[in-house]
């Protein structure tokens, strides 16, 4: 009996174990032969004999099952080990592209303002003199028009020089209150190291009843927005001039390259100009037929934000489809 147990435990393969099983438990096996002896045993001993035999059988079965499990596990392991792959050979072929840093920055800006319950508005790239200039308090001879060299089209229309005409279109088609941003491409006839003929802006406008919207509100949202975009920077508001806002301010952040100590990027001023904004000029409201309202507006250049955020050194490279640049944003 102990002998048999050892024999089972010594088997090295499932085949070997099967042969042994047949020889022990099979119809012509050892156990069958022992049970056959039962008929020759004296009746009074029969019971004990049978009992003993059954116990042996149960005990051997247990050893058998155990060994079978061990051998099955071993066989599986053998099979799997043959499937071995050097996984470290994989993963060198990335199949993901990347969003353009300007578009991605625009997405981030839109995320902020839509979370603050601003609507997103859009308008055509081709605009006319009224929506692009006149209604924004920029009459034909205004010196500020010199600042915006315009692409003109054969029929007297033009490519919008800023996203501000979307403000005008929105106000002309809707009653206040208004709480909107207008992201999109704009065009100016300028082409050098720091200017491209097309770039992107996000414009914002909030209009409510007279006396409701103030400069202090503008200061609040833009400060928070710039912290959202650039993290822990200092924000500075400077009085400035835009024909469509009064009071007008430009907004600077402390230089993210030198921390405000002064470097080449910030022209040693410690500050980077990032936004233009102001309280909407009453002439603009008058042009769209709004009465007894107050509002603020702001506008920013998306390329500038993207370049600062991602340390892109060359503006023009953004428009080249240069994969060497784009693959860095994968």
């Amino acid at each position, binding site marked *: 009996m102990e002998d048999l147990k050892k024999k089972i435990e010594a088997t090295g393969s499932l085949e070997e174990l099967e042969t042994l099983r047949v020889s022990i438990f099979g119809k012509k096996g050892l156990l069958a032969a022992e049970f056959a002896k039962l008929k020759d045993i004296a009746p009074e001993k029969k019971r004990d004999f049978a009992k003993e035999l059954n116990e042996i059988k149960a005990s051997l079965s247990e050893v058998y099952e155990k060994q079978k499990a061990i051998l099955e596990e071993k066989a599986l392991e053998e099979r799997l080990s043959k499937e071995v792959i050097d996984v470290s050979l994989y993963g060198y072929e990335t199949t993901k592209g*990347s969003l*353009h840093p300007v578009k991605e920055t625009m997405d981030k800006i839109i995320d902020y303002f839509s979370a603050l319950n*601003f609507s997103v508005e859009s308008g055509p790239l081709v605009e006319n003199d009224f929506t692009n200039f006149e209604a924004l308090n920029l009459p034909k001879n205004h010196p500020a028009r010199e600042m915006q060299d315009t692409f003109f089209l054969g029929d007297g229309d033009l490519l919008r020089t800023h996203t501000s005409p979307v403000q005008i279109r929105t106000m002309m088609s809707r009653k206040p209150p208004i709480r909107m941003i207008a992201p999109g491409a704009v065009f100016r006839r300028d082409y050098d190291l720091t200017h491209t003929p097309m770039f992107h802006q996000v414009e914002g406008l909030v209009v409510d009843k007279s006396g409701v919207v103030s400069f*202090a509100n503008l200061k609040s949202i833009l400060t928070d927005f710039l912290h959202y975009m650039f993290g822990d920077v200092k924000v500075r508001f400077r*009085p*400035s001039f835009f024909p469509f806002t*009064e009071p007008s301010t430009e907004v600077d952040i402390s230089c993210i390259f030198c921390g405000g100590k002064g470097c080449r990027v910030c022209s040693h001023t410690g500050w980077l100009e990032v936004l233009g904004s102001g*309280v909407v000029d009453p002439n603009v409201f008058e042009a769209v037929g709004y009465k007894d309202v107050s509002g603020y507006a702001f506008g920013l250049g998306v390329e500038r934000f993207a370049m600062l955020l991602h340390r892109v050194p060359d503006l023009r490279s953004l428009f080249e489809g*240069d994969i060497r640049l784009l693959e860095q944003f994968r």
Partner: protein
Amino acid sequence: MIVTRSWLEEYIDLNDVDNSRLNTTLNSIGLEVDSIEEYTFDERVVVGKIISCSKHPNADKLNLCEVDIGSEVVSIVCGAANVVDAKYVAVATLGAVLPGDFKIKKAKLRGVESYGMICSSSELGLPKLEDGIMILDESIGEMVPGKPLNEYPSIADTVIDIELTANRGDCDSIHGVARDLAAALEKELKPFEFEVKNRSVIGVARELQVECRCDTECVLAYSIVEGEGFKSSFLQRLRLAFIKSEANDDLERLLAYAQHESGVLLCAYDFAKLHSLSGDVVKLMIKEQQNATVTVECGGEILSIVGVSQKSDYKANFKSTKVLLEASYIDPEFVVEGVYANKLQTDALYYNSSRGSETAIDFGMKKLQHEILRVNSEVRFSSADVIACEYREGLKVSVKVSEINSIIGAELSKAEIVNILMRLGFDVQKVDSDVFAVVIPPYRHDIKNSHDIAEEVLRIYGIDNIKEQPLKVVEANRINDTYLYYRSLRDIRERAIAANFYEALTYAFSNKELLQRFGFDTVDEKLDLLNPIVQELNTLRTTILVNLLEAAKRNVNYGKKRIGLFEVGTIFAKDRKEYDVITFLLSGEEQRANVHNSAKAKMVDLESFVAKIGSVIGEFRLEPLEKKSGLMHPYIAAAIIKDGEYVGSLAKLHPKIADEFGLKDTFIAEILIEKILPKHINAHALSNFQAVTKDLSVVINKSLPFYEVAKVLQELKAKEAILKDFYPLDIYEDASLGDKKSLTIRFTLQSDQATLSDSEIESVMHRILETLQEHFGATLR
């Protein structure tokens, strides 16, 4: 607008204001500081007095100077020709270190010892003043040999470049900036007091008569000055160099200097030439013309257009011995309109007149006379100045304290507001209750209404002092179609990058000739760009494909072997209607050479391109394309059909074009965004019964495209309830089939009501075969 600290100090006391505070203050009141440059010099750079100057014994071009440098008289060899005219010079004495780490040592020049260097302005790091060495004079202070240059504040000065906004013409002068600073710093402006002593005894009326016929606000002052030509001082030249003035005639310098300081428009006419126009008594006519200009005429000849330009024929110069000086002011809005309406050529002074030059012309005239006299003491001025035309009354605006506060979002008291406005030169009247009237100072033509006043209050009160207040908003659903459209675009872009494309961004322009050569529509001539920036971008683009091809070409040049680009952008139709499209370009290697492809790169092919497009835009079918562009391979091009509608096209790039752009195998697609936006979907009930797949192989004509078969099967599908789906499984061609091919199609059959019986299956398969037989003469294989 460039100012210098010492120049400002002629009008405002800045003793307790260091450069850092000056910078902060200027920025905080809206005078944006572009740059600040502080000029300092080595203490061993001192004033030297030239005692003698003789030719170097061994060199023609060198001079040997004996120079008093205070402590001693030293010999210095100097190569500059103008040293012979010099009395006082800047000497870098032994041991001095000049910009560029240039240390002055004792030197032997052609056998003569030299103990220091006589400096030019550039050698000291100053802007270039003249050829040769810098010749000093008493205009910057008493010339004391040996006194360090650093102790002369107007040379060791701070130069501040201010970027003026278009509305602040009032700050386009030293005096103007000082005036605004004085308001911000709560300081008194130093008055300019000057009485012309050298007046002629002969009445000016015997020489000059001025008549004015002018309705618009235009004021002029005239004075005659006689002398023996004009000189300028070192200080004047130095400051003009600091402010980057281009004046290079001494009279021009005097005019530029006085104008930069006072802000008043100044010019000068040669009086002798005016005599020749109108005789002994020069008669000037100031005339408002019908075309919205004001001209100065003499003997029927136009001498100048006020605020716009001066005719060069009558200009005076430093050699002129009798000069008519003119100081003027003209309403900027009037002058701008005149220039715009008549497309006039303008002088440099138009920059100032159009932004609103200083209105106090008597101040400008006095300043000019003062500057002339400082250097040219022998001159004599006419008995009086002649003033022509009149000022308008100042604009009166009513100010409401509560309105100002609600614009800026603060709670300033009336007293605070009044104080700020008075500091800014506003004449505050009738201060009672919440409302009061102010008269705008004449030089602030930009201020017209309460918002303008609010800005003044804000900038002087200080934006930093305004407490941020989040706006209380009434909740509203602001998710509109534009936002949803934008969200969809974002999803599409995200899917494109997941399909291994990089997002490109290119200009909405293209090259018209190129578009036409490739067979694209172009925007109608009448609607297209009038003033393109460069020839390569001379039209509004009607496709993004050309832009991406050019980008791909650049990438090839950068050594990129796999180029996958997409752009979501606007294109224009012939009628300039705007469409948003998504454009794809996939070129070169699909998979670079690596372990998995046995080091043999896998090139892009139609199948992988189509699969990628599918992962971006969802399920679609390809059909033959009617109108192929010149970019497309004539036999590998397709219309993309989605939900039965044309949404765009897809093709292999024509090999000729690929060669032209230096590209390997390339695929392109351009798809209209509006056609691939997500649609609303209603679910249908799921069948509980098992689906069956059946394959059917038929022999058909080799040239028959699958889409013809699909079209017929699609129609059948609409009739056969249990025919759920089909797709091409296999194509087999061999010689035995001749001009035929074997096509295997896999069908999915399923009933919503019951498990399909064999007879049901057989019967529908039979009808399919019958239909194919009927339409294409298909036979069972």
